[in-house]
């Protein structure tokens, strides 16, 4: 086997893969969720919301399981379910005075427990549930694509909020003193993160989605000094790792979510060394 043979075979497989509808949908979904996920990821990292991402991912699973039980499109049930949990977490945290991690931990367990109960009531197969748990490139439907497109549109519409959210992230008290709706923005950000999680769940998988949101932003943080730079680098890394991860997933027959995350971690390690060099 010549040295150039393997890349040639791989390239051919990639071209072949792009002829399949499911792969086109998966790639488009992966790129779009990579963009929006890593955009919000910058805020998730700087606001210390990683655990919220994890909690909402499990809430999404509860919603998906309910959708499967009710024999509805899981997305239609998972979206309101997860958004409601996101709002409830923020509300209970504010009203109870308990720490975020405690409140998220409660809703995390509650959603998962509900999901398990719902699935136990299903007459037989749980293949769809496994798709959501671990991610699959086979499962992306046109409805998923429309939902992801909608979230991308909402995010584009919300771009002017970037500076306001960033200001409240640096100095919450000053932002409140300037009469910015800091609490409203907390709810808004939680709900938008919830929506991104739900629409990414099928391709990435519930168990890995929090990492999918966080790793590109954490990598970007290591190689940038300004939040605008961090946001842009995060989005670019999110997009590239999602696209490349899906290609790897197809060509090596690996689960899509795991392939993307492994690639993201490799990029994170590179950024650690690059960042260390920059700080010298």
């Amino acid at each position, binding site marked *: 086997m010549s040295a150039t043979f393997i890349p040639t075979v791989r390239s051919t497989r990639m071209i072949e893969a792009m002829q399949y509808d499911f792969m086109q949908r998966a790639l488009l979904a992966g790129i779009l969720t990579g963009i929006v996920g890593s955009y919000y990821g910058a805020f998730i990292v700087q606001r210390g919301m990683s655990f919220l991402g994890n909690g909402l991912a499990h809430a999404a699973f509860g919603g998906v399981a309910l959708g499967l039980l009710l024999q509805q499109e899981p997305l239609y049930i998972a979206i309101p379910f997860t958004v409601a949990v996101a709002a409830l977490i923020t509300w209970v945290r504010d009203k109870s005075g308990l720490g975020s991690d405690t409140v998220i931990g409660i809703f995390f367990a509650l959603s998962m427990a509900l999901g398990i109960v719902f699935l136990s009531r299903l007459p037989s197969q749980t293949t769809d549930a496994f798709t959501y748990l671990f991610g699959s490139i086979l499962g992306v439907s046109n409805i998923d694509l429309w939902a992801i497109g909608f979230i991308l549109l909402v995010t584009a519409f919300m771009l002017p909020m970037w*500076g306001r959210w960033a200001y409240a992230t640096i100095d919450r008290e000053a932002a*409140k003193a300037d009469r910015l709706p800091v609490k409203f923005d907390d709810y808004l950000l939680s709900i938008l993160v919830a929506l991104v999680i739900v629409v990414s769940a099928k391709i990435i998988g519930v168990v890995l989605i929090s990492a999918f949101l966080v790793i590109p932003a954490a990598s970007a943080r290591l190689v940038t000094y300004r939040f605008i730079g961090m946001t842009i680098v995060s989005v670019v890394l999110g997009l590239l790792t999602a696209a490349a991860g899906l290609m790897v997933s197809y060509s090596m027959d690996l689960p899509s979510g795991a392939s993307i995350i492994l690639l993201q971690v490799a990029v994170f390690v590179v950024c650690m060394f690059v960042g260390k060099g920059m700080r010298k």
Partner: protein
Amino acid sequence: MNENSPAIELSGLSVHLGDHLTLDDVTASCGRGEFIAIIGPNGAGKTTLLRAVLGLIKRYSGTIKIFGKSIDRNDPSEIGFVPQLKSIDRNFPAITCDIVSTGLHKRLPGFISRKEHDLIHDTLELVGASHLCDRPFGILSGGEMQRVFLARALIRRPKLLLLDEPATGIDAIGEGDLYKILDRFTETSGATVLMVTHDMLVARHHADKILLLNRTLICFDTPEIALSDKYMSEAFGHVGHIHPHGEEHAHD
């Protein structure tokens, strides 16, 4: 707005935080251009009072007026705020310029124009920190950070400047510089300053008036009167100590 109205008017201000009465029936009127230090023991309600004036306390009884307007109708752009350093996310990726510009726009800018950069540079020069303009914020020392936050407050040319223990975490030289900057600012701008501090020596030397607090208002008068044994023992239970190096501190 009445041009002659006081900078801050508090009338019967009471604040409950949870079940705890943090401020009880505080009435005071701070004139324009005055430098007022808020002093009191831990838990006396000093920061609560400052937060109430900032409009951060939503549930209170009594009235708070800033330049003659009720607190929910005043213009926040007229107020500059220098927070305690511990309330700031020091790990946030920003350069000094970014932080100062938030005082101007009430948001973090994506990009800063040349004209705006020059304005920020000039404001940083006022606080002796123009050399920090393009430096990453996270690597600054406590004293440098405090100058940056002072610049953030000053860039909007505030008529009222609020400071919450601005010298905490700063060395003696940095602290001295900070108060020199404040004195220069009040002299040139005519702005009113309201500052929470534990340092009575600073209060004595720099403030026109002292608001001595222990949940209720103990005294609101000149440093000579407010820091007299009579009022200090009423506020603290005993009089503040003077340390061997001349620094005077209030103790619980």
